[in-house]
């Protein structure tokens, strides 16, 4: 359709500059096409664009009737429900700003966001969220009205400031009758430069910051992304990621309205996988963890299947791994292999994709963290167009997107259309300029000034390098990146992630900042190494014993050398190859303060606690004695003595591409 052919800067040729205008347009031009579905009482209920546009209009009028003013904020808290998406649009059409809040936040976090955003209105999905709001209501003097959408369990709540969504809608309908033309006039007042949403980032340090995105940010970024992936009104998605996350707002709300496709809301958080299967989306976004879980489930199921099925599965997955990616990317493949792949599709890949709900999947994205190459390749080999993107809230979701025919597991692709990227020479940090650059942090000038340079570049906080052919590779948080003594870049997390993709390695800590070369601590995975030891008749008594076995050292050495070989193939990272390593006698543990509760390595604490071991790695000792204090589960402490071996690993000469 011509309307989706946007200008190169992402501006709409029809001049629609806010999402409510797109919804109103869809309400006329796609009146009978499905806009939203929600599974309720076991049946998919649907709403057409015509109905959605009418609901939004009614809700907006209802809010206006309840005293909602231009510039007011509405806090939104709940799961992915159609009503909550409507409330986004209703608020925006009145010139207000929605502030979605993560539904699993505790009351204190909710209070901080509502208080900081100065929201006068809140909409909550159900009793659970209403209760949360009621416990903090006293501390939020500005909060005037709370609207709830699911009345269950709320029958006895009789606070005057509590309104059911139904009531608001009814009053809205009456209000509209009395004031025809009100809604259209209000909506027309909206312009692209208005703030469209404030997304509070879940900030790992300190309080969350409110990222203000303008309508222009969202509309232009979404329009460009739609053109990039040729997303159209026939697409289907499942909206299951938190509403408060900018990505869900972008895909399930902005892209849906602009491209006019249908958004499906799952029945509950627990039914996502079966709903996925029923809907069979064509466009799907998931963090790497979800793909990892899917793959693990498949593998476990297959190991329980009958021998014939198992062998058939493994044979055809082998075929897929050999040629699947080439077929997907349209590269030349021998006729025999093509035939085998076609048979495999009939017997294995097709049924498997059906079970996973991926039969119709045309476009899948993953982002957020590094995805294991095996997992990535597995899905691509099945013929699923899984790609990576890179971005953050401040740039309106994406900076880099992989192209359909040029997808790799270790880069995030070239800069997306309309986006300029550069890498700071000094720090290695990635900076960008794009139509999606955020307006600022709400009520935090200092942080805004820190993130944005005067000439419009924004700091991502991530360190990256460009590969020789222009793909961006994110290597680490900028503050963790260091230098080896010879001046070459040292990115510990990048190397650690590569190590952790091996099933034998549970955790790795790599050192090298201001040193001559890189070294590593390794934590073995007791499950994986233990079962390997069992199969190879290696007896062991404890974790420490197993970790110290020479056979285990040989396996880990193997893994490290593979990583080294991999690093050597990339000129910018070749210096990070690991020369010496040791396997720790105990697992790094959050109880000992060595990891955070979300299992991130705490470098400083480990460097302090294991200083001796690190020094030994940089000497020529072949072993080092340790005496460690350990905390048992019951809180008692004890000491542990062991002799840890240190081994060298082969390093490789960096290879440069010919020409």
């Amino acid at each position, binding site marked *: 359709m011509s309307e989706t052919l946007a200008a190169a800067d992402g501006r709409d040729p029809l001049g629609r500059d806010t999402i409510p205008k797109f919804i109103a347009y869809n309400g006329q031009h796609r009146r009978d096409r499905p806009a939203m579905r929600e599974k*309720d*009482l*076991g*049946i998919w209920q649907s709403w057409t664009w015509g109905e959605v546009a009418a609901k939004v209009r009614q809700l907006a009028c209802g809010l206006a009737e309840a005293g909602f003013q231009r510039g007011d904020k509405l806090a939104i808290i709940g799961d992915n429900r159609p009503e909550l998406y409507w409330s986004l649009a209703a608020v925006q059409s009145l010139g207000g700003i929605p502030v979605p809040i993560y539904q699993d936040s505790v009351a204190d976090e909710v209070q901080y966001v509502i208080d900081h955003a100065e929201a006068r209105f809140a909409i909550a999905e159900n009793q659970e969220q209403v*209760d949360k709001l*009621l416990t903090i209501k006293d501390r939020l003097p500005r909060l005037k009205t709370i609207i709830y959408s699911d009345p*269950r*369990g709320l*029958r*006895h*709540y*009789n*606070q005057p400031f509590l309104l059911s969504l139904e009531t608001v809608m009814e009053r809205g309908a009456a209000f509209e009758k009395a004031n025809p033309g009100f809604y259209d006039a209000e909506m027309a007042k909206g312009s692209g430069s208005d703030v469209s949403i404030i997304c509070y980032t879940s900030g790992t340090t300190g309080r969350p910051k409110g990222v203000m995105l303008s309508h222009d940010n969202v509309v232009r970024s979404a329009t460009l992304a739609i053109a990039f992936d040729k997303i159209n009104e026939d697409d289907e998605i499942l909206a299951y990621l938190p509403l408060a996350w900018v990505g869900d707002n972008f895909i399930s709300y902005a892209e849906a309205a602009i491209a006019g496709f249908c958004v499906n809301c799952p*029945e*509950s958080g*627990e*039914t996502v996988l*079966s709903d996925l299967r029923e809907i069979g989306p064509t466009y799907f976004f998931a963090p790497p963890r979800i793909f990892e879980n899917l793959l693990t489930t498949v593998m476990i199921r297959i190991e329980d299947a009958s021998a014939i099925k198992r062998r058939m599965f493994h044979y055809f997955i082998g075929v897929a791994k050999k040629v699947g990616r080439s077929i997907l990317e349209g590269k030349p493949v021998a006729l025999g292999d093509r035939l085998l792949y076609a048979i495999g599709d009939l017997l294995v890949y097709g049924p498997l994709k059906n079970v996973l709900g991926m039969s119709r999947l045309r476009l899948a994205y993953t982002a957020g963290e590094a995805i294991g190459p095996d997992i990535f390749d597995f899905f691509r080999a099945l013929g699923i167009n899984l790609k990576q993107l890179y971005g953050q809230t401040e740039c309106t979701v994406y900076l880099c997107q992989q192209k359909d025919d040029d997808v790799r597991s270790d880069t995030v692709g070239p800069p997306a259309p309309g986006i300029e990227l550069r890498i700071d020479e000094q720090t290695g940090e990635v900076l960008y300029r794009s139509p999606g650059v955020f307006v600022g942090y709400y009520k935090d000038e200092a942080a805004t000034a820190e993130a944005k340079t005067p000439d419009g570049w924004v700091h991502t906080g991530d360190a990256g390098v460009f590969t020789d052919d222009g793909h961006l590779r994110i290597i680490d948080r900028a503050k963790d990146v260091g230098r080896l003594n010879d001046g070459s870049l040292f990115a510990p997390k990048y190397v650690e992630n590569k190590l952790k993709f091996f099933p034998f390695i549970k955790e790795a800590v790599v050192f090298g900042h201001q040193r001559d070369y890189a070294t590593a601590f390794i934590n073995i995975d007791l499950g994986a190494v233990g079962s390997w030891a069992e199969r190879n008749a290696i007896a062991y008594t404890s974790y420490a014993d197993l970790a110290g076995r020479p056979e285990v050292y040989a396996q880990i050495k193997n893994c490290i050398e593979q990583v080294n070989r991999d690093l050597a193939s990339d000129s910018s990272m070749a210096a990070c190859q690991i020369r010496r390593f040791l396997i720790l006698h105990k697992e790094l543990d959050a109880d000992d303060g060595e990891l955070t509760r979300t299992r991130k390595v705490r470098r400083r604490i480990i460097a302090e606690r294991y200083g001796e071991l690190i020094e030994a790695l940089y000497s020529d000792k072949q072993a080092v004695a340790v005496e460690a204090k350990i905390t048992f589960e019951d809180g008692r402490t004890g000491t542990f003595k062991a002799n840890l071996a240190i081994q060298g690993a082969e390093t490789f000469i960096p290879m440069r591409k010919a020409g």
Partner: protein
Amino acid sequence: MNPAQKTIGDVLLKVENISLSFGGVKALTNISFEIREHEILAIIGPNGAGKSSMLNCINGFYHPQEGTITFKGQPRKQMRPHEAAKQGIARTFQNIALFKGMSTLDNIMTGRLLKMKSGLLSSAIYKGPAEKEQIEHREFCERIIDFLEIEAIRKVPVGRLPYGLQKRVELGRALAAEPTLLLLDEPMAGMNLEEKQDMCRFILDVNDEFGTTICLIEHDMGVVMDISDRIVVLDYGRKIGDGLPDEIKRNQAVIDAYLGVQH
């Protein structure tokens, strides 16, 4: 935030001078109490006190040798369980009694059996009135599934479910019969704390949303004291206490029965 004080109505079921014995064993001796509309009544007592036998008498599975049971003002004697069910008494069991090979949804649908009117023939033909009826019943069951938050296990055979969820499905099946009186035999036995909390919430919600009268047997005193409006205490087949939770806590006979006294 506080739910409005609920109103407890008239006597729904009255048990008078019930005695039940199996051969020489006297399970219940001369028991009388009342269950009032809209209340949650707990029956407690040490092992072998006769609690389950009492429930079995109420839903017509056992026939007491003496005494009368009056339900909704109608005295009754010698009633079969399915007749009790027709009158609006549903129950769950101490040991889960579900159809293990059937899905959650199908198990709950069995709770609607008494409400189904289509005969064998029209059900076999299915198209027409039987289909319409089936859809209505399915919708009712879906409301229960929604209420008990078990959407994710709708199609899972119950034999594969963890214990706590099976208990919830059993409650769902009892609710499917739209009972006026719901008998729960140890609804929280063998559950962990979180499952117990969930179950408590569902019991209170059922009582509140549907106005169902509930009579339950439970061993967890914390739960009993928290959720019940009134408590009846049995020991060795005799009633030793009857009253509000606070009165029961202070009742010497009850304390003796639970902690033991020197004879």
